[in-house]
């Protein structure tokens, strides 16, 4: 299935979080994840 996604860069997280806490459902907080990048040999 195709995933459709956009990014909005350089946000003010406090402002966004305030709106989301009023209107959206909080799902989870992942305090820290580690991303590994791999390249085909």
């Amino acid at each position, binding site marked *: 299935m195709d995933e*459709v996604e956009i990014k909005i860069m*350089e*946000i003010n*997280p406090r402002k966004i979080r305030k709106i*989301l806490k009023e209107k959206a*459902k909080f*799902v989870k907080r*992942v305090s820290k994840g580690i991303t*590994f990048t791999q390249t085909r040999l």
Partner: protein
Amino acid sequence: MLRESPKELHLHKPGYEAERTEGKNVTITIKGKLRVVDNHKVRKEINFPLKNLKEAQEFCDLIGVKHTSTVEIKREYYKFYNCSVEIVQWPTIPPYMEIEGSPSNILKVAKLLGFSKKDFFPRRVEDYYKGLKKKKSLTFSNEI
């Protein structure tokens, strides 16, 4: 090397990418070639779980990919109009937001959060901050 701690894996080659997402279990996501349609990032994805990072490393070895860089990422997930909204924080760069869903719902959510279509960036973080491509390791502990 992959480390036994949480928890994402990205596999890259031109037109092909996979990642493992955070959580107790390891998930590898194979991502198809990125297309930009109407300022949205669109691509096919296939996810499958693996037991742990060791198994993920073995999988990567088997398909012939090697580890190139590590990035620590903090994420907060919200559900809003059938969209997944994430506040994402990488070391050294300002926070950004990802919205995933149908194009109409993405636009609706973006407007409610004070943004418009012109604010959409439909590519990878490394395409926005070109200097990040050269970093082998980005962790919060290394942040100045």
